[in-house]
């Protein structure tokens, strides 16, 4: 299948002599939410980095119709302005003086143009997204003083102020407690349903896959091994084989969870 906002064909990503990701074919149509799952080190984050040109790849990587590998620095920067990318690693520096509002405004920095000041409507957009994600009361607080969940939401706001055609999220709930995990999942569901933005969500916890997710890609040992509807991919046998533990996949209200098989709860 081709003609999506993301198209990969015969893609190979190498780290030194080792091939760390192989994608024979993967296409994401506009307005779809695809969750990319797999064990740690499977190549999920590499896939996202390849899409935004942070990782060089052999083969054809097309994002919004452009061949990422062929783009020069300026063209690549322009492409990235249409793609909201939320990396897994948070910028953890306690001394950083930036406010949350300033961090969210980073999303408008490339779009405003090199050497030009952010305009009134850029800041309006920043404030609107802070308000929409319930972060307005924290706008002028130091980003470094916020909790991990608040920071993560701030980074989603930073990506959304770009008005992106594609939103790429790398483990957006990593290291968050249950309450914040659910807030983030709820935010993603709302964004997808209200804006129909194309989303690629990398996660290794099945619990964070939103109920509205209609497609799953399973990455294992540096290759996309399965791609289809969640119900088809998330079988107990496949999960047990993947993680080497006897597991059972349960579904409740459109969400998934995995529990060890056997034994009665105590």
């Amino acid at each position, binding site marked *: 299948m081709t003609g999506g906002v993301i198209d990969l064909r015969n893609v190979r990503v190498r780290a030194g002599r080792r091939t760390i990701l192989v994608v024979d074919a993967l296409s994401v149509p506009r307005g779809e939410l695809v969750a990319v799952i797999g064990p740690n080190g499977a190549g999920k984050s590499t896939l996202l980095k390849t899409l935004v040109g942070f990782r060089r790849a052999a083969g054809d990587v097309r994002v919004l119709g452009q061949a990422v590998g062929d783009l020069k620095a300026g063209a690549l920067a322009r492409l990235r302005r249409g793609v909201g990318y939320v990396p897994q690693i948070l910028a953890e520096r306690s001394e950083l003086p*930036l406010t949350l509002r300033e961090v969210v405004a980073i999303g408008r920095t490339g779009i*405003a143009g090199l*050497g030009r000041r952010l305009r009134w409507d850029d800041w309006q957009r920043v404030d609107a997204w802070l308000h929409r994600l319930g972060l307005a009361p924290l706008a002028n607080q130091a980003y470094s003083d916020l909790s991990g969940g608040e920071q993560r939401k701030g980074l989603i706001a930073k990506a959304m102020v770009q008005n992106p055609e594609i939103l790429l999220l790398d483990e957006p709930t990593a290291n968050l407690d249950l309450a914040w995990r659910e807030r983030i999942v709820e935010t993603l569901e709302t964004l997808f349903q209200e804006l129909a933005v194309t989303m690629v969500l990398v996660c290794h916890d099945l619990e964070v896959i939103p109920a509205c997710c209609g497609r799953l890609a399973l990455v294992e040992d540096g290759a996309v091994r399965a791609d289809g509807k969640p119900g088809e991919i998330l079988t107990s046998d496949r999960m047990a084989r993947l993680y080497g533990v006897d597991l059972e996949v349960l579904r409740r209200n459109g969400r998934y969870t995995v529990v060890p098989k056997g034994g009665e709860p105590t």
Partner: protein
Amino acid sequence: MTVELGFWAPVIAAGALAGASTGLLGVYIIGMRIPFLGVCVSHAALAGAVFGSLGGLTGQTLLVPALAAALATALALGLSNPRTLRADVNVMMGFLFTLTMGLAFLGIGLFPRFGRSAGEALALLWGSLTFCSWRDVALMVPLTAAEVAFVLLFYKEMRAIMFSREHAAAAGVRVALVWSGFLVLASAVLTVNFKIVGGLMIYSLMANPAAAAFQLVRGHGRALALAVTLGTVSGVGGFLIALLAELPTGAMIVILSSALVAVAALLAQANRALQAGRAA
């Protein structure tokens, strides 16, 4: 005293410019946790000046090889990809610092073969604020102006880069272009300041005003403004204290800027305790 102040005017001007320009750089260098960039750049400049001297250059022309070496080092540090090299930027700085220092000492070791003294080599680069002239100030003014102009022009890009180069690049910021420009300017400002003002003072004026500002204010613009102010206060205040008390100038500037960090940390601590008390 009026006559004395007039006599010391270029020194006061140089202290203010050094404090302001390095205080401004410090916001980004400390904000990005790469304080040893200054140490690396200065030793690279020293190596460049030493080999320039061995090549027959003298006086202000020595700034050319010093600047070239400083630039090469700063760009190697700033543009290298830690993932590709499998080395953190601090590891890279350790490598470059020792390499450039080794080269500088090698060059100094070769001085006697060329009929020169080692002290002559060190004097090429490690200046002293007390001996500043208007000619030195004239060199510092355009560089400081260029630095301020750069930060004003690329204010939002530098803010994004300070937060995270990866996040900035992901938002479509031309990180390599802007960061390279900053490194070029930083190298020039640091090299000239080392030559005119001296090493230890520059390290302290780069790190301390920014560290103090980060304790007291939030926001990119406020941090820049306060760091520049505290840098200027340290440069001028330290000199005036030294002049009045007949103490070493460089040491007083370093001690004053360090004291400002301690005071800022205490004020921040007191403010946090006050806010916690109000919340309770």
